[in-house]
């Protein structure tokens, strides 16, 4: 406090005495006259907190009137202590303090008005943190740029500077946390012997990370839910159905589908599930174990069930005959965040593995192909571009995780969030450290996937308003209300605060002539560059396909060689 031992500044206004306050020099006298006690040195800090409070109050529509009034349930402390009141409102409305990257730095116009004091306390610390956050982002960009130009020395010194800065910021949340992961990835890129650093860890470990990511956030649940909806609808009217899962993991997606099929009006079909996954190194057959568990569940709900595991390290090692698609069964191909691994560098010549895989998928004539991918462009050839895109993408994902963690109470949930971050860290490392065939996380945006699927001769299936509404309802199970489900041309995306992060789409290839050639490139040009007329050209081509194929001939001979055991339920 100041040298003046005057008590009225502290107590005068509670009693409502209308004296001019004998203010200790720190208290702003004019605000005191208005009934608010604020230290002059805190004015800047209080102003910033007010700005944050406003941001926290403004809903997604930018609409103050729609503000959902949790303030009426909030406890309001002494409003005269303005700094404390604003802080208490902020903690009610924005429990996870968002990263400073979203807030403007303190404007220059106020620097004159900040009184210099030996202890700037909270105001100064807040400013420093915000400044550090912005500095971190700048340093990250600069080091990525240095790496792209081959200036290893500069990149190294920038990384040192960032490490130092990270000791001064809060790395528990926000930009500090994400920056930490990216600095780690940059370090590995510069100083690790091989670029295959990201591929550390066994498949079993990866499955555990995946499971925690599934628990800690709605992204995978959204993926499974929307895919299952589409599969369920595609299977209507079919007695024998076959789901091919491109990455079985712990089979988390399938109990819900099995149960939904069990409840189908008219009775469940006979369900076959073929799960593709990496081979188990230690002689265990983890695919089989998961199959057994799912068979047990199917038996309990009286669904005829058969499981086959296909062990393959890469999807392009799989051959269609391994899947043993039988004549007359309705086929669903399900790929959750797998197809991007089959892409190559955009500027490398020749076909990418994705092309042959899409070709044999098409050859299976599936009733439905469900594709879920990260909604980001992490396959850009330029390192700086890719790095920048990833920084903002993963910042957003981390923000959403943080909001989820702040609003949940269970210790287990908190732990899941921590492990989920490790899951994401692997992706970050892959994108930042790996080049060429070592890089697996080649995420591409929905628009490009759609073009690719159409080019491969697959027809889009509208995900439907039912799926949309139900996906939205699913999200109400999660607090941290920042998630948004959007529908884009029959595809669904889930995002955080209007940034889509994951996109689900559905396709089919069951109703055309086997000999029909794939649709020519100029069709894709029409469909993605000229949205006004795209509908008409798609309609024209669809009509052309229907005319060409009046006989839907599903018969195929299948190879009899089988490499894996199959497991039958029931």
């Amino acid at each position, binding site marked *: 406090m100041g040298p003046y031992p005057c008590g009225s500044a502290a107590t005068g206004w509670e009693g409502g*005495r209308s*004296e001019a306050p004998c203010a200790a020099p720190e208290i702003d006298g*004019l605000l005191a*006259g*208005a009934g608010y006690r604020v230290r002059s040195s805190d004015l800047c800090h209080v102003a910033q907190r007010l700005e944050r409070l406003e*941001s926290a109050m403004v809903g997604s529509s930018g609409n103050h009137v729609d503000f959902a009034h949790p*303030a009426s349930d909030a406890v309001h402390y002494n*409003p005269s202590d303005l700094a404390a009141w604003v802080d208490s409102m902020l903690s009610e409305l924005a429990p996870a303090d968002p990263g400073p990257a979203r807030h403007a730095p303190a404007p220059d116009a106020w620097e004159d008005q900040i009184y210099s004091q030996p202890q700037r306390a909270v105001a100064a610390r807040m400013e420093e943190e915000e400044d550090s956050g912005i500095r971190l982002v700048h340093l990250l960009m600069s080091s990525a740029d240095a790496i792209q130009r081959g200036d290893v020395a500069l990149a190294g010194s920038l990384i040192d500077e960032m490490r130092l800065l990270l000791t001064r910021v809060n790395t528990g949340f926000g930009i500090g946390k994400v920056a930490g992961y990216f600095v780690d990835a940059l370090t590995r890129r510069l100083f690790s012997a091989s670029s295959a650093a990201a591929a550390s860890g066994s498949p079993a470990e990866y499955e555990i990370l995946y499971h925690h990511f599934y628990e800690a956030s709605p992204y995978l649940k959204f993926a499974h839910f929307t895919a299952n909806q589409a599969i369920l609808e595609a299977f209507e009217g079919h007695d024998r159905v076959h789901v091919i899962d491109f990455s079985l993991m712990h089979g988390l997606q399938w109990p819900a589908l099995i149960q939904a099929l069990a409840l189908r009006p008219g009775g469940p079909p006979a369900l076959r599930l073929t799960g593709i996954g990496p081979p188990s190194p230690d002689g265990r057959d983890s695919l089989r174990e998961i199959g057994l568990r799912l068979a047990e569940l199917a038996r309990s709900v009286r669904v005829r069930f058969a499981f086959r595991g296909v062990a393959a390290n890469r999807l392009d090692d799989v051959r269609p005959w391994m899947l043993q698609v039988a004549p007359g069964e309705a086929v669903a191909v399900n790929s959750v965040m797998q197809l991007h691994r089959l892409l190559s560098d955009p500027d490398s010549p020749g076909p990418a593995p994705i092309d042959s895989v899409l070709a044999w998928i098409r050859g299976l004539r599936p009733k439905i192909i469900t594709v879920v991918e990260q909604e980001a462009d992490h396959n850009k050839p330029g390192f700086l571009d890719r790095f920048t895109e990833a920084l903002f993408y993963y910042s957003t994902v981390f923000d959403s995780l943080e909001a989820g963690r702040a609003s949940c109470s269970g210790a287990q949930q908190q732990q899941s969030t921590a492990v989920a971050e490790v899951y994401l860290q692997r992706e970050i490392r892959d994108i930042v450290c790996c080049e060429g065939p070592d890089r697996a996380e080649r995420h591409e945006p929905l628009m490009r996937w759609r073009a690719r699927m159409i080019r491969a001769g697959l027809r889009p299936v509208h995900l439907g308003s039912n799926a949309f509404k139900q996906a939205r309802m699913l999200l109400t199970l999660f607090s941290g209300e920042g998630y948004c489900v959007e529908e884009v041309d029959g595809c669904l995306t889930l995002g955080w605060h209007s940034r889509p992060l994951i996109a689900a789409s559905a396709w089919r290839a069951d109703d055309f002539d086997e000999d029909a050639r794939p649709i020519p490139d100029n069709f894709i040009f029409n469909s993605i560059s000229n949205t006004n007329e795209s509908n008409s050209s798609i309609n024209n081509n669809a009509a052309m396909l229907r005319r060409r194929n009046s006989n839907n001939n599903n018969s195929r001979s299948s190879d009899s060689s089988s490499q894996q055991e199959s497991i039958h339920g029931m």
Partner: protein
Amino acid sequence: MAGSNEVNANESKMAVPLNTWVLISNFKLAYNMLRRPDGTFNRHLAEFLDRKVQANATPVNGVLSFDQLIDRSTNLLVRIYRPAPVPDSEDPQTSPSSATSSIFSSLISPPSPDPFPVIIFFHGGSFAHSSANTAIYDSLCRRFVSLCNAVVVSVNYRRSPEYRYPCAYDDGYAALKWASAQPWLHSGKDSKLRVFLSGDSSGGNIAHHVAIRAIESGLTISGNILLNPMFGGQTRTESEERLDGKYFVTLQDRDWYWKAFLPEGADRDHPACNPFGPNGIDLKGLPYPKSLVVIAGLDLIQDWQLAFVEGLKKADQDVKFVYREQATIGFYLLPNTDHFHEVMEEIKCFVSSNC
């Protein structure tokens, strides 16, 4: 969205001193919490958050205040501010040591033998917020006393949405009638009530409408002082669109307050809101008081305020209009800008020349 908030915050920060920005932004956010989308208002929380001060009959800087209930049927309170009474030391009967001297009678003694103005003040708050004992208005009224050697009567009128039009006007007129029945407020050789109606924001609107009622009942008003008076209309004006959300105020909140004040089903061309609009009355030839209208150049409703001034001029009424180009709403709340000091001078001149 978050970006545009930053832009707006930066613009408004450039326009006002830091403590003013903190004060008005705090009001803005607190008020946002009080308005509900269904048109109801969190009155309980509003009263809790409002910074109020008690009346003080002990002079502070030469000004004292006391509250009076002037209408029991509506619980209408006014807070009266006046210069400290000068004790008559020559008259032994009124000396302070007299055991029978009545404190109250000294309170309601005329402040001076010479003519003095009585300013009836209606606080702002868009018809919904604040009270006569709100700290910011207590300060302003005290300043008017010193500035103009006036007695200020601050009216605690009934607020919306609980009490819609015309309650605030009824209360304002009741206060005027009360003042005209107080002998101690009459001054000069002709023992006249030299009354000015004044107010900021919604208070300015009330002052205008009370002046019209005064005409109808034959009471003479010496002058109207309107600070950023709150008017509006159904159409959207250029200033509303240009300044929406930029300087603490949004069109959306303006619409909410009108909806809360005007009768159900009325639109903003109701004459309470738009006195010179399609439903307005013609003031030509009527003894409407001289007006001083102060308009802030960064107030989004200035086009309506300018239309009000035009309306008065077209009706051949005497209006002095002061336009402070760089001022925002609430500039008169803290004495930390030229706008504040220069406008106070204008008010002083206006009152003294019309008293």
